[in-house]
Structures are given as structure tokens and as C-alpha cells.
């Protein structure tokens, strides 16, 4: 980790926070739950970290513990991602889908 990398990461972090604040302005009440659920599925992005962590060679058990932890993280993150998007989809099909159909 060099100072340049760190500054780059912090820049990304701060700018993304500003972007996130601007993205959501006025949301009708009926979309609060789907929006929350959709955003929740996106926060399962740690699946990327879990994938990288689970990809270790189990030589002599030295990295066994960290591998197991990453594997559990992978399963939980996938539940979060797949379940989250599927639930959001179900909700939206009932709210927004009907509106378009009528």
C-alpha cells in the first residue's frame, strides 16, 4: 500500500458518498421497501472480497482458517445478493409491473 493508492481509494470513497447522496432525492413511499431491498442486494458486493479470499491453496493448514472464513463469507454474500435481487424483483412485479400493465 503506497500513499498514492491510499489517496486514490479515499478519493473514490468520498466521491461515491457524494454521488450516493445525490442519487436518491424524492422516492414515493411505495418504493421505499424495494429500494431498500435492492440497495441491500448491492451491498452484497463483498462477494468479490470473499471470492478472492476463498481462492487459496490449503498448504499445511496455514491459511485454512482464513479460507474457511472466506468460504462462509462467500455463502452469506451470495444469499444476500441472489435473495436480495429476487425479493426486490418479486415486490416490483407486484407494484410497478401492475401499473405498466393497466
Amino acid at each position, binding site marked *: 500500500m503506497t500513499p498514492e493508492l491510499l489517496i486514490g481509494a479515499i478519493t*473514490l470513497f468520498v466521491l461515491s458518498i457524494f454521488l450516493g447522496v445525490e442519487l436518491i432525492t424524492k422516492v414515493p413511499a411505495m418504493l421505499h421497501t424495494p*429500494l431498500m431491498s435492492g440497495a441491500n442486494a448491492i*451491498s452484497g458486493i463483498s462477494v*468479490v472480497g470473499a471470492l478472492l479470499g476463498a481462492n487459496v491453496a490449503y498448504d499445511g493448514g496455514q491459511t485454512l482458517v482464513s479460507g474457511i472464513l472466506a468460504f462462509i463469507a462467500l455463502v452469506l454474500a451470495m444469499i444476500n445478493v*441472489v435473495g436480495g435481487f429476487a*425479493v426486490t424483483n418479486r415486490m416490483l412485479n407486484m407494484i410497478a409491473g401492475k401499473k405498466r400493465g393497466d
Partner: protein
Amino acid sequence: MFEDWISFGYLLSAVLFVFGLKKLGHPRTAPRGNQYGMMGMSVAVITTVVDMHFLPGGIVGWTIIGSGILIGSLIGYIMAVKVEMTGMPEMVALFNGFGGAASALVALSETWKWIETTTPEPGLETTVTVVAAGLSALVGWMTLTGSLLAMYKLKGGIEVFGKWIRTPTWGPAWLNPVKGSLFISVLVLIMLSIDDPTNTNYLWAIIGMSCVLGIILVLPIGGADMPVVVSLLNSLSGIAAAFTGFIINNSVLIVAGSLVGASGLILTVIMCKAMNRQLFDVLFKSFGGGERQELTRTKVGSDADEVAMMADGAQKIIIVPGYGMAVSQCQHQVKEFADLVAEKFDTEVKYAIHPVAGRMPGHMNVLLAEANVPYEQLIEMDEINSEFPECDMAIVIGANDTCNPAARTGEGPLAGMPIIDADQARTVVIIKRSLSVGYAGVDNDLFYEDKTMMLFGDGKKMMNELNAAIKEL
């Protein structure tokens, strides 16, 4: 050469997330927004797999990775498809907890590998890793325990060996300083572990205290505020992912995590506004579920025939659904009732949707849409309130706090909450199992008014009786 450009995949994925979140906020584009989110996530996963392929050593854990993805996807999909519409809020809370736990576990796994395989030297690398891992653990574990408790609070209780135990709501004033000092202690522990990064005692202490913090943060909050808390925890799980991104120095984790963290916080504030509450009050002032008013009055119940006769001749009926409709799953009977009166008596039927009716914003919209109620008949509170004075009959189904006139008095737990003006209608029919108080624990004057007819019973049963009575007329 090719591997240098892989990060573009993460950029594409981040752009898709931005569009996804933006589109999720508008009714017309929301389904598309969700699809963009899915695409973004797929691109991120594929990019990571390709990236790992080019790493020195390549992918050594195909079976581990493949089975992890498969197991997680299957469990998530089955849970999402099987859940009842009424159980949706709990499911969102549970998934959210898993997301927080995943971020915290990745952080822990990386820290573990780092401690075991390297000798950390004091310097920037150590400081960044330790601070990011500590903050990720704080937010992640807090999200897990907080979300699990929120889930059981939304359910109302937990079944242990066949016995139903109510989820407690407990928050004396001295709990707030405890929250503060726990939070500061965790920060101090993170500072200490910068100088002594291999000391795992610090690590366990941080994890333990964060878990406790999550529980005591949610414990004092009443059921009616639970949606706000779940939304806040959702924001936190995003922040946890962003901190984890700092440890593994991954751009998509940082971007997607902080996007969710920021937009989740804004959504939380919007939800608070819909209930006329301040976020600070929700978190630090105990509300609802605390003291429940004793009932001192009684009211004679009516029967379905009586209500059916009143409905005959009504020109306009407004239905006010609440959590009771969700619990008894009577949305189809409600729709049948609306069709019956429209057909037989030529009555105009509308639905008044309170922003926080049920246990989640939009809960009623989802249920009524499931029963094929036309979208145009669902009117939001602000628009429909002016129509009640000219409405012949308001039918309140399992709602209490959202139409309690006590909110107008400016006193008590409901003070200032905007309500549905059902009491302005000429006749009010209330379908409810008893006169008992709602989530806020306040008695409802509306029940005892002369123009109010109480139908005591389960929503589905009473709606069926009512529909039968109307058919017989």
C-alpha cells in the same frame, strides 16, 4: 497485457450500480433498476473470476468457489421465492444481516491471513489494514446482530421449544451513555491494535463489543420504527463493504459500498420524514412498546349484516388497510368486497394508503397489487385525506395507530405523526380482533365514537362474512 485492463470490469459494474439505484427510485423504471443492479453484480463476479485467473497461481480453489456460489445462490433464491408477502420485511432484515456479516468475515479472513503469513511492520500498510479491518468489523458485526434482532422484532417474537417468547423492547435512559462508551472503546481498541497488530485479543474484543452494540442499538426501538432501523442497518452494511474494500484495495467494493451507505442513509431520512420523526429521536428516544395504556372503556360490536346494510346506499367507500390485513392475508376478500359494492350498489371505492401502514413502507401496495387492485385506486394519505368528509363509509382493516386521532393532540407517543382522517367519514367500520392498543401503545378514541361500528374478529373471517351478507342483500 490483458490483465491490466481488468479493472474496467469493476468500473462497468459500478456504473451499472449507479444507474440501478437511480432507476429504483421511480415507479416506472424500478424493475429496470433492479435488473441493472443484477447485471452490475454479475459483471463484478465475472471480473473477479477472470482477475483471479491471471493472478500468479491462478484459481486454485475452483471447487470451494463453485460450491460456495452455488450453495449461497440456492439458499438465497429458495428463501426469496418461498417467503410470504407478509414476511417480506423480516426477509430484507435477514439478508441485510448476512451482507454485513459477509463484509466483516472477509475483513477477518484477510486480517487472519495477513497475521499468519506476514510479519507486519509499522507503517502505512499496517495502519490502513488495521484501521479498515477494525472499522469493517465494528460496522459489519453490528449490522449482523442488529439486523437479526430487528428481524425478530418485526416477527414479534421467537418460538423456543413450542413456546412463543415476545421480542422485548427495553431501553432505559442510561443505555445511551453505554452505547457511546462502547463505540469509543472500539475506536480506542482499533488505535491500540495499530501498534500491536498481531494481538488477536484486540480483534476478539472489537468483534464482541460490536455485536453487543448492534443489539443494544436496536433493543430500545419500538416496532413501528423498525423499518427505519432496517434501512439504517442497510446503509451500515454498505459502509462495512466499503471498509472491506480498503483492506483488499478493491475499487468496486469501495464504490458500491459507499453508494449504498450514502443512498441508504438518505432513504432512512426520507422514511423518517414520512412518519414525521427525527432520526436522532428514533435511535435514542425510546418509543412505542414501552408503556401500554390500560383500556377503561368498552364498545359493543356490530355484525356483518348491519355493515352490509350501511354499505347499501353508500356512494363512496374508502378502505383503510393496515397490518391486520397483512396478517390475516385478506387482501383478496377486500378486493372481492370492493367489486361487490361497485357492482351491486354502484359505489365508488378507493384505498387510503398510509406511508407506514403495515411493517414496511409500501407493504400495503404490495399486498393489494397481489390481489389485482387497480393501481389508480390506491391513494396516498396526503391526497385522500381531503376526501373523507364527503365519504359515506371508511372501512379500517386492522389499522390502529395510522388512524388514531390522538396523533393530532400533540401529546403522547403518537404526537405529530400524520394520520389518515378516517374519523371524518360519515360512518366508520373498524375490523379488528379486539379494542387492544396498537404498536405505539395508545388507546384509540375513534373506536368509541357513535358513528363507529366495530367488527370484532380476524380480518379474513370478517371480510368473508361481510361479502356473504352483501350477496344476500
